[in-house]
Every structure is written in C-alpha cells, then in structure tokens.
C-alpha cells in the first residue's frame, strides 16, 4: 500500500485517532475501577444503600 508524498499526514491522522480512542477506553475503564473501589470501601465501612439494607439493619 503506497501512500504517496503525503504519507506523513495520513499516518499522523490514523495514529492520532487510534491514540484518542485508546485514551477514551483506558479513561472509562480506569474510572469504572475507581468508582467500584470507592463503593466497596464505603460499603465495607458499614454505609449501605437503603435497597441493600437487611431488616436487621433497620
């Protein structure tokens, strides 16, 4: 596949799109892990949502 005299523009475009999409995926995945960890930490300390409480808690 020959990209001609403007190969650098084409390669930069595709590389940039790949980088930004990867960054989005990593950011969303890391955010999910962070929120899950904070939620488990809070629940471990005894703070739970009403829907999760048992009759004994109330």
């Amino acid at each position, binding site marked *: 596949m020959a990209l001609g005299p403007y190969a650098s523009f*084409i390669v930069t475009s595709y590389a940039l799109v790949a980088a930004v999409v990867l960054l989005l995926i990593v950011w*969303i995945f890391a955010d999910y892990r962070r929120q899950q960890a904070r939620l488990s930490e*809070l629940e471990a300390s005894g703070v739970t949502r009403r829907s999760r409480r048992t009759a004994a808690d109330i």
Partner: protein
Amino acid sequence: MPLIDLANPSRFLALTGRILPWLAGATAILLAIGLYQSALAPDDYQQGATVKIMFIHVPNAWLSMFVWGVMSLAALGTLVWRHPLADVAAKAAAPIGAAFTFLALVTGSLWGRPMWGTYWEWDARLTSVLILFLMYLSLMALWRAVEDPSRAARAAAILTLVGAINIPIIKFSVDWWNTLHQPASVIRMGGPTLDKSFLWPLLVMAIAFSLLFITLHLAAMRNEILRRRVRSLQMMQASRTVFSSEQSASTKMGTA
C-alpha cells in the same frame, strides 16, 4: 423488558453489563473490516492517497453532531420528563463528543494542509465545528463547577438545547455560505456522489464509529451512576458522623 424499566439505574446496570461485551466485540470486528477496506480503497484521481483520511474524518465529524443530538434529547428528558437517567446520559456523552469533535477538527486540518494548502481557514464550516468543540468543553466545565448534580443538570440541559442551534448551522454552512469546505457528498438530495469503492469503506467505518460511541457511552453512563451512588453514600456517612458527634456532645452535657 419494557423500556420504562430502564429508568431504574439498577436494572440499567444489570442490562448494560450483559450487553457491553457483545457491543465491544461487534465494534472491534467492524472497525477491523472498515480499516481493511480503507487500506484497500484506491487512490482518488485528484486527492491521491489522502482520500484515506476521509474514512476517519467523516465518521468523527458525523458523530460530533450526532452526540450533541443525543445530548439534546437527554436535555429534554431532564427538563420535560425528569427521567432519572437523562442527565446521566448527557453528562456521560459530553467528553466522548468532545473527543470526536477534536478528532474531526485535527484530521480535517491534516487533510486540508496538502489539499487546500492550509491547516486552517476561518470559514463557516470549520468555525462552527470549532464552536461546537468549545461548547462541549464549556458543558464539561459546568458539570464540574456545580457540585449538586440536580442543579448542574438543569443548567447543562438549558445550555445543551441552546447549543443545538449550532447543529443545523454546521450541517448547512456549506450551502448557506461560500466556504472552502466541500459540500455534502453522502447525505444529500439525489443520493451520494461518492464512488462505491469509497462509499462502502466510509459507511462501514461510520457504523463502526457509531457502535464505538454506543459502547463507550453505555460504559460511561454506568460509571456516572456508580459515581452518584458513591456521592450519596459519602453524604450518608458524613451525616451519620455529624449525628453521632452531636449525640456524644449532648450526652457529655447531660452528665456534666
């Protein structure tokens, strides 16, 4: 499952947890097919190989407008129907829309330099897309600035609906004004003017990027729901701490 059940965040989390792996797989397969077809597409008789930039520029440009459309619907959901997931959907979509708009601007610039002889021109299409990008950033700043999500939701919904005026301006800017940017060649009266050897890779890439958006959006919505749960638990924990310290203070006063 009736659609109204999705208004329940717990059911939404359960359903999207099952759907997301399939969506991610379909996105990866379609992206691979689209990239393969783009690599095999012939050179354009005028643009040469730079026509390959179109296969990533156009889907990003379409999605930059489509995401704002999704956010506008969500804004109506917040203001009119007060749907519990509407603001979650809008807030989760904004950074993804900003990323697509950024990519549309940069890949357009990288195509423009060899074809137009300039990276940037203050014409109607380019300027209106730049305004869209700045609007995405301002919305994200607004959500970060207001701590209470319900107050931020109303302000952001109004700003989103006002900003929706820019979407038809972007779409028709090439018809209304004399711009350097070429007029529409796919979504137009009379059908696409592109040759099939370019049209097919472009459509596959457009569907792949749309699936990518849906996948990332659902995942980001799940994160936002969890973030709001964390916030409400932290507030519950803080109020418990205040309550117990007040109780111990009153007990001490009673014994004194």
